[in-house]
C-alpha cells in the first residue's frame, strides 16, 4: 500500500517528521517497506542561471559556462549539452554530489584543459527519467539556489506499507491516519462525507439475484458530466503510487480506493442497456475486461449483467464495453459489497489481480458503502460537473457492531502489560471502538471497518500495539519441572547418533529433496498415486521419496561430474511408504562411490580398491551399533531389494520379520535407469524399526565376571561348497559347545587353483574360554572334534588335511 506524505497529511494533522512517521508505522504493525524521498535524494541539485556559454577552446562539442548558483561567486562549468546557452535557468550540482544517473561522485576536474567546478545535469543524470536530450531547462522565474525537487513537484515522499491481511481498513490512507492518530502522533481530521441530494430518481434498476454473493449494491447516475484528463494534483498523486491516470471518472474511483479503501466502479450509462442484475455467471459467459484480456466464467462466479450480457466481473474488474471514456456524458457510479471468499476464489481461478479484488477479498467497511458513493459523487461533481440522481440501494447493509465483554486485566494476563484504565479507553476510542461501562469488565463495540476483531485477544493486540511492545517488560521464564530431565525421544536420540556415527566413518552429510521423480520413486518401490504431488514445482520433484538411495546416488553422480568421483555421502531423513503419519519413517542411508572406502578415499600409495558390499555392510552395522543395537543379536541374510546387486547385497534382520537394514552394491540395471555410473555401495537403516531398549530400574551395569583361566585358540581350515555361507560355519562352530566356544572368526578364505572346482577353503579361528579349570590337551581335542563334526553335519564341510 503506497501513499504520499502530503496525502497522509490530508487526513492527519501532525508536525512529525517523515522518519518519525515511518518508524511509528512500523512499530504499530504497519511495516514500512520502503520510503522514497526524492526531496532528500535530490537535495544537492539546485536551481542555477547560466550567465555565459562560450565554446570550449579545445573541443567543438563542449561549452565553457559561467553559472550563478545563488551563493556567491559564479562558478565555471564545462558542459556538453547542446541546449546549454547564456541566460537559461538550469539545474546545478556542486562537486562532491553523488550523480544517481552515472553512479559517480562529482569532482573538480579539468576537461580538455579547462577546469570544471560542478555540473549542469539532465533528467537522466538525476535518475528521474530517461531523458538525456540535454540539460534540464527551467522556467525563467525559477527561484535561484532553491532545491530542484520542490519546483518539480518531486518533494512529496512516498511510503510503501506492507499491510497485513487482517487490516483491510489500512488499505486506504484514512485508515492509516487513524492508526497513527491513536498513537498521539497526530490528530485525525474529520473526513465525514456529507450526503449529496439527488435531483431525480436513478433510472437504472438494480436486482440482486444472489444475496449471498452480494449483500448490498448502491448505484447512482450523474448526468451531463464532462470527462477528460483529471487535474494535475490527482494525476500526480496516482502516478506517485504507481498508477496510470486514465480519465477523471476512472481516476476518481482509484482515488477513493486508495483514500478510503473503498473500491468503486463507473459505467458509461449510454452503453448500459436496461437494468443491472447481479447474478451468478452462466457457464461459458465471457467478458472483455478493462485490462484488455477476455475471461470465461463458471457458475461459481458473480457478475453484473444488463440486457447486453455481462458488463462487469463483480468486485474485481469492469468490462471494456461499458467502461468510461472521454466521450462519456452520463456515468453510473457503483458501490457494492461482495462476498470476500467468493471474490478471492474467482480472482484466483481467473488469475486476475486488481486493487478492487485485493480489498474486497480482505473485507471492506460495509458501513461505508453508501458514504463511499457519496464521496465519489462529490468528486465527480467537482471535477466533471453534472447532475446526480438519487441513490438506488439494492439489498441491505449488514449490521456490524460486534460487542465484546472485555476484562481490563486481560492486557496484563496475555501481554504482561501494566496499563491504566484511561489508557485502554483512550486507545480503543481513538481506533473507533466504543467503550461502555466502568467496572473491571467493560463492553467494547468494534467499528464497522474492523471485521478482523473477534474477541478479547484482538483488543489486547490493539492496546499493546498502540501503547508499544517495548512497554512489555522482559519476564524470566522459570525452567519448570522438566528442567534437567532428558527431552529427546528414542528416535530423536537415534537420529543424532546415526548422523554422528556415519560422519565419524568418513561420510559427509547431505540434505536432499523429499521429493524425486516418479520414475525414480517407482524404481525404489514407491510412486503410488497417494504420494504424487498434484502441483509439483518440477517434473523431477513430483513424488515423495520411498528411499534416500536415489537422491544420494544422483548427488554422488553430480559430484563425480564436477571432478569428485570418490565421495561418500549420507543422509538421515524421512521416507514415505504411504500418506498417513505412521507411514513416514526415518532412514539413515550411507552411500560410497568409487574408491571412497572407510579407511580412505581415492587412489593412494598404500593401495585399496573400489567400494563394495562389505563397506556398505560396515556402515549399516556402525549405524545400528551407534543406535544401541546389540550387533551379535542380528542376522545377516543374503540378498536385498531389487535395486541392489542380487549376489552382492544383504539384509540385516532381527528374527525372520523385522528387516532393520539393507546393504549392497547397486544393481547394474539401477545404475542404468538412474543414468549414473558406479561402483556405488549403499546401506539403508530404518531407525524406527530398531526396538526400544528395555528400561531398567537401575543404571548399574551387570557385574563383570572374569575367568581366571587362559583362553585357548584353535584354527581349523575347511573345504566346503562355494555356496555355503560363512555364517553357517560360524553358527555351527559356536553351537558345538556353547559353554566353551567364546568367539569364532574367519581368518582366511580361498577359492581358485589348488582347490577343487565349486569349492572354497575357509579357515576359522575358534576361541575356547574355560570357566572352571584349565583345559587338558585331551579335552581340547574332544572339543575340536565336536566342532569339526558339527560343521560337517551342518554344512558338509570337511577338514582340510
Amino acid at each position, binding site marked *: 500500500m503506497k501513499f504520499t506524505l502530503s496525502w497522509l497529511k490530508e487526513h492527519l494533522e501532525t508536525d512529525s517528521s517523515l522518519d518519525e512517521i515511518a518508524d511509528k508505522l512500523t512499530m504499530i504493525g504497519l511495516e514500512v517497506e520502503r520510503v522514497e524521498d526524492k526531496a532528500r535524494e535530490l537535495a544537492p541539485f539546485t536551481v542555477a542561471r547560466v550567465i555565459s556559454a562560450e565554446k570550449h577552446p579545445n573541443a567543438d562539442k563542449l561549452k565553457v559556462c559561467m553559472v550563478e548558483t545563488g551563493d556567491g561567486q559564479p562558478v565555471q562549468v564545462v558542459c556538453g549539452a547542446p541546449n546549454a546557452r547564456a541566460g537559461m535557468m538550469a539545474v546545478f550540482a556542486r562537486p562532491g554530489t553523488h550523480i544517481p544517473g552515472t553512479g559517480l561522485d562529482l569532482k573538480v576536474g579539468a576537461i580538455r584543459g579547462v577546469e570544471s567546478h560542478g555540473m549542469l545535469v539532465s533528467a537522466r543524470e538525476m535518475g528521474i527519467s530517461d531523458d538525456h536530450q540535454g540539460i534540464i531547462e527551467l522556467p525563467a522565474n525559477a527561484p535561484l539556489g532553491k532545491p530542484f525537487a520542490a519546483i518539480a513537484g518531486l518533494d512529496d515522499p512516498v511510503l510503501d506499507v506492507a499491510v497485513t491481511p487482517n487490516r483491510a481498513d489500512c488499505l486506504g490512507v484514512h485508515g492509516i491516519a487513524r492508526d497513527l492518530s491513536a498513537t498521539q502522533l497526530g490528530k485525525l481530521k474529520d473526513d465525514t462525507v456529507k450526503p449529496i441530494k439527488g435531483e431525480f430518481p436513478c433510472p437504472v434498476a438494480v436486482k440482486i439475484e444472489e444475496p449471498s454473493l452480494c449483500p448490498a449494491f448502491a448505484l447512482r447516475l450523474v448526468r451531463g458530466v464532462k470527462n477528460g484528463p483529471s487535474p494535475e494534483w490527482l494525476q500526480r498523486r496516482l502516478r506517485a503510487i504507481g498508477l496510470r491516470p486514465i480519465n477523471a471518472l476512472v481516476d476518481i474511483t482509484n482515488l477513493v480506493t486508495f483514500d478510503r479503501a473503498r473500491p468503486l466502479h463507473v459505467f458509461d450509462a449510454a452503453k448500459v442497456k436496461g437494468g443491472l442484475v447481479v447474478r451468478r455467471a452462466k457457464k461459458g459467459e465471457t467478458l472483455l475486461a478493462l485490462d484488455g484480456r477476455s475471461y470465461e466464467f463458471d457458475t461459481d462466479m458473480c457478475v453484473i449483467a444488463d440486457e447486453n450480457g455481462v458488463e462487469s466481473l463483480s468486485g474485481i474488474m469492469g468490462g471494456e464495453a461499458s467502461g468510461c471514456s472521454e466521450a462519456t456524458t452520463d456515468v453510473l457510479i457503483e458501490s457494492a459489497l461482495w462476498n470476500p471468499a467468493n471474490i478471492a476464489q474467482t480472482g484466483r481461478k481467473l488469475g486476475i489481480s486488481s486493487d478492487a479484488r485485493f480489498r474486497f477479498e480482505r473485507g471492506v467497511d460495509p458501513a461505508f458503502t453508501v458514504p463511499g458513493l457519496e464521496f465519489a459523487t462529490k468528486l465527480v461533481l467537482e471535477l466533471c460537473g453534472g447532475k446526480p440522481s438519487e441513490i438506488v440501494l439494492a439489498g441491505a447493509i449488514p449490521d456490524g457492531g460486534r460487542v465484546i465483554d472485555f476484562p481490563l486485566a486481560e492486557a496484563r494476563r496475555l501481554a504482561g502489560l501494566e496499563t491504566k484504565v484511561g489508557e485502554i479507553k483512550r486507545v480503543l476510542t481513538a481506533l473507533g471502538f466504543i467503550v461502555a461501562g466502568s467496572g473491571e469488565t467493560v463492553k467494547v463495540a468494534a467499528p464497522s471497518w474492523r471485521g478482523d476483531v473477534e474477541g478479547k485477544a484482538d483488543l489486547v*493486540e490493539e492496546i499493546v500495539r498502540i501503547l508499544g511492545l517495548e512497554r*512489555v517488560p522482559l519476564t524470566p521464564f522459570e525452567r519448570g519441572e522438566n528442567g534437567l530431565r532428558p527431552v529427546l525421544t528414542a528416535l530423536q536420540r537415534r537420529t543424532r547418533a546415526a548422523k554422528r556415527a556415519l560422519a565419524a566413518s568418513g561420510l559427509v552429510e547431505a540434505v536432499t529433496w523429499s521429493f524425486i521423480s516418479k520414475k525414480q520413486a517407482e524404481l525404489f518401490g514407491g510412486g503410488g498415486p497417494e504420494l504424487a504431488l498434484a502441483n509439483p514445482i518440477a517434473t523431477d520433484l513430483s513424488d515423495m521419496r520411498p528411499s534416500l538411495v536415489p537422491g544420494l546416488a544422483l548427488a554422488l553422480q553430480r559430484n563425480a561430474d564436477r571432478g569428485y568421483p570418490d565421495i561418500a555421502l549420507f543422509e538421515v531423513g524421512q521416507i514415505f511408504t504411504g500418506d498417513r503419519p505412521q507411514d513416514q519413517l526415518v532412514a539413515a542411508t550411507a552411500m560410497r562411490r568409487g574408491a571412497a572406502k572407510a579407511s580412505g578415499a581415492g587412489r593412494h*600409495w598404500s593401495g585399496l580398491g573400489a567400494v563394495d558390499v562389505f563397506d556398505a555392510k560396515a556402515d549399516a552395522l556402525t549405524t545400528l551399533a551407534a543406535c544401541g543395537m546389540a550387533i551379535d543379536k542380528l542376522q545377516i541374510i543374503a540378498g536385498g531389494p531389487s535395486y541392489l546387486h542380487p549376489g552382492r547385497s544383504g539384509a540385516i534382520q532381527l528374527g525372520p520379520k523385522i528387516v532393520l537394514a539393507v546393504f549392497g552394491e547397486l544393481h547394474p540395471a539401477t545404475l542404468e535407469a538412474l543414468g549414473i555410473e558406479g561402483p556405488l555401495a549403499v546401506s539403508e537403516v530404518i531407525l524406527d524399526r530398531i526396538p526400544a531398549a528395555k528400561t531398567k530400574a537401575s543404571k548399574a551395569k551387570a557385574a563383570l565376571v572374569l575367568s581366571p583361566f587362559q583362553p585357548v585358540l584353535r584354527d581349523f581350515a575347511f573345504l566346503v561348497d562355494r555356496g555355503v555361507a560363512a555364517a553357517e560355519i560360524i553358527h555351527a562352530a559356536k553351537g558345538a559347545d556353547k559353554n566353551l566356544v567364546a568367539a569364532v572368526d574367519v581368518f582366511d578364505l580361498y577359492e581358485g587353483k589348488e582347490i577343487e572346482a565349486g569349492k572354497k577353503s575357509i579357515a576359522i579361528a575358534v576361541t575356547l574360554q574355560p570357566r572352571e579349570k584349565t583345559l587338558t590337551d585331551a579335552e581340547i581335542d574332544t572339543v575340536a572334534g565336536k566342532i569339526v563334526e558339527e560343521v560337517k553335519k551342518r554344512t558338509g564341510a570337511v577338514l582340510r588335511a
Partner: protein
Amino acid sequence: MADFKKLEAELLAAITAAEDDTRLETIRVAALGKKGSISELLKTLGTMTPEERKQEGPMINGLRDRVSEAITQKRDTLKRAATAERLVADKVDVTLPLRASALLRGHIHPVSQVIDEITAIFADMGFSIAEGPDIETDFYNFTALNFPAGHPAREMHDTFFFNPKPDGERKLLRTHTSPVQIRTMESVKPPIRVITPGRTYRCDSDQTHTPMFHQVEGLVIDKTSHLGHLKWILEEFCKAFFEVPSVKMRFRPSFFPFTEPSLEVDIQCDRRGGEIRFGEGNDWLEILGCGMVHPNVLRNCKLDPNEYQGFAWGMGIDRIAMLKYGMPDLRPFFEADVRWLEHYGFRPLDFPTLAGGLSE
C-alpha cells in the same frame, strides 16, 4: 706357562676375527665346550698335586675367565652391529602422506548442527522436542490454526497438494511446522513446552526460497505465560545461539492467523563489510514471528482460552544458520555439493553443548 700364553693369544685373536655369531660359537665350543682346549686343561687340575694345583689352578681359571669374557663382549658387539644394520634396512619415508582419517573426512550438515544447537538451548529451558508428519491434512495445517477457508492468508502459503481422494480429502505437504502444535495440544495435557524442528514445503523457488526448507517452532501452554516471558525466552535464545553477550531486539506487531497478538521480531546487527555481526550496529534484521496462541486455536484443541494461555514462535532453521555461519545463499543447502558441505559442514565430534560452547 708359555703354552697357556700362546693358547690365550690364539683364542683371543680368533675371537676378535670372528665375523659372525656362528664363527664365534665354533670358537667357544673349541675352547670351552666339553672337549674344548680350555676344558681339557681344567680337567687336568683333578690329577694334580695340591701344590701343582695351587700354582696352575689360577692360571687355567684365569685363562677360562678371560676367554669367556672376550666371547661375551664379542657377541654383544656383533649383536649391536646386526641391529644397526637392520635399522638401516628398515628405514621408511615418513614424509609419505597419509589418508585423511574418517574423522577428518566426515562432516555434519549445518542444518543438523543448528538443530542440535537449538535443542541444547531449549532443553536447558525445559523444552522437549516434538515432531509430526510432513504429509498433513488441511485441518492440521490450516483449519485448526484458524486459517478461514479461502482466506488470502492461506493463499500466501503456496501449498503443495496431493491429488484428492475419492472421498474428497486432499492431503498436503505442511507449509510450516505449526501442525505439530495442534498435534501436541491434542495429545499432551498442559503445561506444554515443546520445540518442533522439521522440514516444511512451499511451492516457491528463487534466490532466497527453496521448495523445501526447515523450520523450528516453540510452543508454551499453561495458565500464566504471557508476552513478557516470550520476549525473555527469545532474547535468551538469541544471545545463546549467536553466542554474543547481549542482543538488541525489536518486537513489532504483525499478523498470523494462529496468534493474537502477533509479533515479528527484528534483531539489531551490523552489516558493514559483508558479514553480519549481532549485538552491534544500526540495521534491523527480521528473524522470526511469534505471538500469543489464538483463542480459536486453543478452542480447536479443546482447551478453554479463559483458563489456558500461551505463546508460540517460529523461525527458519536454514535462515538462522545462514545468519550465524555466513552462507550467502539458501539453495546450496540442498544441492549436496561436497565442496559446500565440507566448507560449511561441522566435524563429526563437535557436538554442541551449553557446557562446552555451541561452536568452537
